[in-house]
């Protein structure tokens, strides 16, 4: 379980997070939503210990990341798989080498076992035949899926997705959403999805946390996201409804001119 307790973070005089508390329950899928610049990615970096809060604590399986030594922190980070916004694939390596990279350094698998494991991960993300390709030879969606294969290669307990569908076409976004659900189901991992894509939220999340102006304004089940009393969340959701396809809010198509 991940517990975020009263964390605040500033960069100089720019306050990014203010007294944010949050629980991510085991085996569940939490979506953290909010406008661009609301501190979602900064919150994610706190959860994996890439940033330390000015005040507050982050506990992973009851262990405080903020007080951990660097060596302990590195051990705790191995419980995480992270899909970064741009994939963060090593561009000097092939897709196969990218996925094999953590296995070579942190597992006792033989070369043959690593090859099997990498192929299994590629199969899981439906990219069985791209192992030899470098990241520059892949499309945006394929890069994200290879990055996802790398994130799951060490069989993490937690997977963090930073804007998994940003910059992707709707069909590829659906593929990524399906993959998030499939991985949560088949690998029984706890998922945290950072996004501002409400369609993705409705597809994958069990619970939703809404960040607004450095504060965590609302946390609740995804089913209640349309009926909550928070005006900022309502506004955020309404702004996304055209994308979601609610017939009551979708503007009618204009008649084609004769």
């Amino acid at each position: 379980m991940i517990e975020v307790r009263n964390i605040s973070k500033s960069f100089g005089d720019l306050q990014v997070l203010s007294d944010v508390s949050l629980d991510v329950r085991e085996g569940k899928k939490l979506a953290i939503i909010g406008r661009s610049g609301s501190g979602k990615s900064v919150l994610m970096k706190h959860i994996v210990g890439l940033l330390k809060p000015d005040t507050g604590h982050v506990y992973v399986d009851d262990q405080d990341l903020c007080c951990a030594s660097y060596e302990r922190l590195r051990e705790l980070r191995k419980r995480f798989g992270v899909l970064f916004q741009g994939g963060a694939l090593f561009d000097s390596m092939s897709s196969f080498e990218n996925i094999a990279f953590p296995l070579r350094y942190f597992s006792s698998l033989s070369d043959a076992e690593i090859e099997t494991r990498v192929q299994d991960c590629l199969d899981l993300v439906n990219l069985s035949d791209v192992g030899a390709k470098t990241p520059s030879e892949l499309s945006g969606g394929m890069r994200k899926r290879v990055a996802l294969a790398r994130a799951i290669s060490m069989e993490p307990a937690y997977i963090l997705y930073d804007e998994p569908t940003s910059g992707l076409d709707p069909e590829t976004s659906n593929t990524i959403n399906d993959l998030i659900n499939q991985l949560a189901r088949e690998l029984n991992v706890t998922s945290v999805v950072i996004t501002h894509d409400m369609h993705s939220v409705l597809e994958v999340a069990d619970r939703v946390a809404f960040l607004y102006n450095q504060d965590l304004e609302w946390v609740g089940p995804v089913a209640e996201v349309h009926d909550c009393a928070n005006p900022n969340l309502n506004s955020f959701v309404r702004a996304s409804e055209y994308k979601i396809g609610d017939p009551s809010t979708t503007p009618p198509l204009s008649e084609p001119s004769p």
Partner: protein
Amino acid sequence: MDTPIGAYTPPGLALSPPLDVPFQTAARLAVLDSLLAPFRALGQYAILIGRAFASVDEFRMYWKNLFIQMVRIGIDSVPIVALAAAFSGAVLTVQTAYQLETPFIPKTIIGSIVAPSIMLELGVVVAGFILAGRVGARIAAELGTMRVSEQIDALEVMGLNSIGFLILPRVLAGVVMFPMLYVVSCIVGIGTGILTGEVGGFLSASEFLEGARQFFQLLDPFIGFIKSIAFGFIVTSIACYKGYYTGGGAVGVGDSTTQAAVLSCVFILVADLLVAMLLL
């Protein structure tokens, strides 16, 4: 504010004044901030390089990376270093011959001047400048791009010590390979000096070598060797520092690359003087 290894903190924000302070106080703080910036950078640099060498016990994980970097920094730089050394040796021979064009000075003196000059100064400094551009800029751009595309964060999240993995092999490769490039630079520089003297009709190869032998001191190549180790460390460590703490996307990568090359050249000159003053 404690920042974990691998985390990026925007530089220059530590003393940024809050918005509600009077303008004069804010201006004073800004001036103080800019005055302290070099010292803050020096401290950050020292900590980074200290952390890189502190991770030496994990080096069994990173040794493959050392060989890759030795090839990229050393072997791949041989052609450009040899080219620069060749022209330096040739020009030095021609100009020395021009300055000593008198029947009262024996021609062998040209060899006595050119060979020690290359071993003591020109060979190593020219190689250092060339490598500040080629190796320094490359390292800064590579690490800077890894920083802005979150590849360094990805390494950290996997549980890898990114400083040990990225910086230590590059600095060690620089320290090991720069002296070898210095040797290449000296051999090619003196070789083209001899060739230019012969082809240009200034002096024969035997006269050149006789002059070089007459005034040869073991201290000359020794000092050049020490300088090359120092330059190797300076170029790679500054480039790693600038690249590792890059921020701000493509512009940030460009800034880091430029700063790495310029600072390396400046500190090569400073180190050149210090070594000369200490050892001569």
